């Protein structure tokens, strides 16, 4: 990969950072021992597909997150690419998510109407955005500390990172899982072998 691509990947931001991609250093702490096969059950995968479908539903233009099986993708990512700490946030979050939904609507997420589902997620998302302002400040401070540390000869400063809200995880995994799936790639008009480059295409 050339540096230009690297820049665009550094800028790979979804209201925060892709989880599992920026936790390189903190990923080195603690054991990574959750049993791979048992972390997300088939029922949970279906459940997460429904949550994902609410974030990225089927439209006239393209299939939705359920068709892309983002639930299955979440299982893979949480199992292999999440730190133990983030796995814990994710699983506790799933319980909290269902609990909060029941408290709000008097029924579980799967029994909510599409309008209720969407409304519920919008509420969660608003909360995440609010908290993000605070977290951004901390990350900025920590980035400065890392730089100072590196400048003084310590390359591996362990940055304090604010805990990632579980809903951010679910939303990011949905987006990443969807748009990197075959369905997602097709939705953006991906051509596997373009054969040429045209730097000025004007729509007809």
């Amino acid at each position: 990969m050339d540096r230009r691509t690297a820049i665009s990947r550094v800028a790979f931001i979804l209201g925060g950072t892709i989880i599992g991609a920026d936790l390189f250093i903190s990923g080195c702490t603690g054991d990574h021992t959750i049993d791979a096969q048992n972390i997300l059950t088939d029922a949970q995968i279906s459940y997460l597909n429904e949550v994902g479908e609410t974030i990225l539903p089927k439209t006239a233009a393209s299939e939705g997150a359920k068709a892309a099986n983002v639930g299955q993708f979440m299982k893979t990512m949480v199992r292999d690419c999440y730190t133990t700490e983030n796995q814990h946030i994710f699983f506790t979050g799933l319980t909290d998510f269902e609990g909060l939904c029941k408290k709000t609507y008097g029924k579980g997420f799967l029994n909510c109407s599409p309008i209720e589902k969407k409304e519920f997620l919008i509420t969660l998302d608003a909360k995440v955005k609010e908290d993000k302002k605070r977290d951004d400040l901390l990350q900025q401070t920590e980035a400065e500390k890392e730089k100072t540390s590196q400048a003084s000869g310590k390359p591996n400063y362990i940055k304090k990172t604010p805990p990632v809200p579980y809903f951010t995880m679910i939303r990011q995994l949905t987006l990443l899982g969807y748009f990197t799936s075959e369905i997602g790639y097709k939705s953006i008009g991906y051509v596997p072998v373009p054969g040429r480059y045209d730097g000025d295409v004007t729509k007809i």
Partner: protein
Amino acid sequence: MAENTYDAIVIGSGISGGWAAKELTGKGLKTLMLERGRNYEHIKDYKYGTKQPWEFEHRGSTTIEQQQKYPVIHRGWAANEAVMDCWTNEQDSPYTEIKPFTWWRSYQLGGRSTLWGRQSYRWSDFDFEANAKEGWAIDWPIRYKDISPWYDYVEKFAGISGAKDGLPHLPDGQFLPPVSLNIVEKDIAERLKKHYKNQRHLINGRVANLTAAIPGRTKCQFRDRCWEGCPFGGYFSTQSSTLPAAVATGNLTVRPWSIVTRIIYDKDKKRATGVEILDAQTNQTYTYHAKIIFVNASSLNSAWVLMNSATDIWEGGLGSSSGELGHNIMDHHYNLGASGSIEGFDDHFIYGRRPTGFYIPRFSNLYGDKREFTRGFGYQGGASRDSWSREIAELNIGGDFKDALTNPGSWNIGMTGFGEILPYHENKITLDLQKKDKWGLPVLAMDAELKDNEKKMRIAITMEAANMLDVAGVKNVNTWDSGHAMGHGIHEMGTARMGLDPKTSVLNQHNQVWDALNVFVTDGACMTSSACVNPSLTYMALTARACDFAYNELKKGNL
């Protein structure tokens, strides 16, 4: 020919090793190429290059296990699911950081030639003469005229695309048609040219990707998936280019899993007679003999091989008599630049994925430009439209959100600077005799840092980047400087420099080790200064030149 005896031995199979093997075998020399890692066969071993991106289990992310095993690779963008198998196992092959040093290695056939950024620029006499003019370090023993025909030669074979820009400080070459700039970049190029009165240029990146087919290789398909290994052979690598040519001569033997532990030196003849290797799989020791030896193990490991050779005569190893072996290590410092957003091009789109972007060649300390630091820097960058990963204000959930993300977002532009690092004697690598690798061999200790000149330059790099974007009408201009640990530019150079005097250099003007004239070092180790352009093309040219010289010397009976 006796068993285990060849005309030539090449240590390493990366960009310069591949060239050495191609040139020497092409001249009829029976050549043994030694690679310390695994075989990595063109196309067949490209695990992901032929897969669709959605077939990657983690869609590019690395696992916690990989993050723990490869902490150095995870210091930057090199960590990606597609290429993790290509990076050196950090547990088996550790190194010591006296000062922070990021060393991204690939111990496999082809070395980093399958992974490289492919940017290919010539040096000019502004670069070759800089040390002498400033009285800095030592003079290069060659000038542009010595290397120019060899640039021609390697460009034609490797396939370098670019435009003839007519810049004396970035000489034109034997180019295939350029990879084009997009409409936004063309617009900005015009604005810069006008504003800076033709003193600054935004040009097509010159890149080792084929924009036209050359014999045996298909042209670039604009997938932008080079480093996964290209099933089309669309870019230059050992595998796609030099290795098939060397194999076709019938003169090449390749031996993977061969860690060269030392060059065997005959002190009476003052010549090397061969190499000793450790088989990385069986731990068996073998000896191979040859008339000439090319050391192309990558800058730091080439120095390592020399440091471990002829230690009974020179404590610091072969080539250490000058006191410069392992010293003067350089890199290009980067991880800084500027970005911003572009207005007015919303109706313009892009088709295809380029393997390069634009390049802004050096302008500092040239043609009357004077700075409070010496030398210069260039920028690599690109303009593009945001992808699905962008944030859309007030729209985070639902069908409208999804449909909006499937369309390209707004245009933006980013560029990152690459600055020259001066050779400093005190920036060095040494053997750490306390720490051993998996095979019980001593490891390298890195003790190098940026100094005042580089630090001053970094301030100018971000400032000038922001200035240029500003005058070009770019909005929301931001600068960044994430700091630079030595090595992070992946352009390690200088650990066995060329020179005119055996008292101050390790190699002469033909890349021969002064103390063993049949040993040639033609990778980054040989560099006397670093310039600010990507160095691999220069290694190719120096290697082809040295091979030609070595062959002629052999014929004359001088080696």
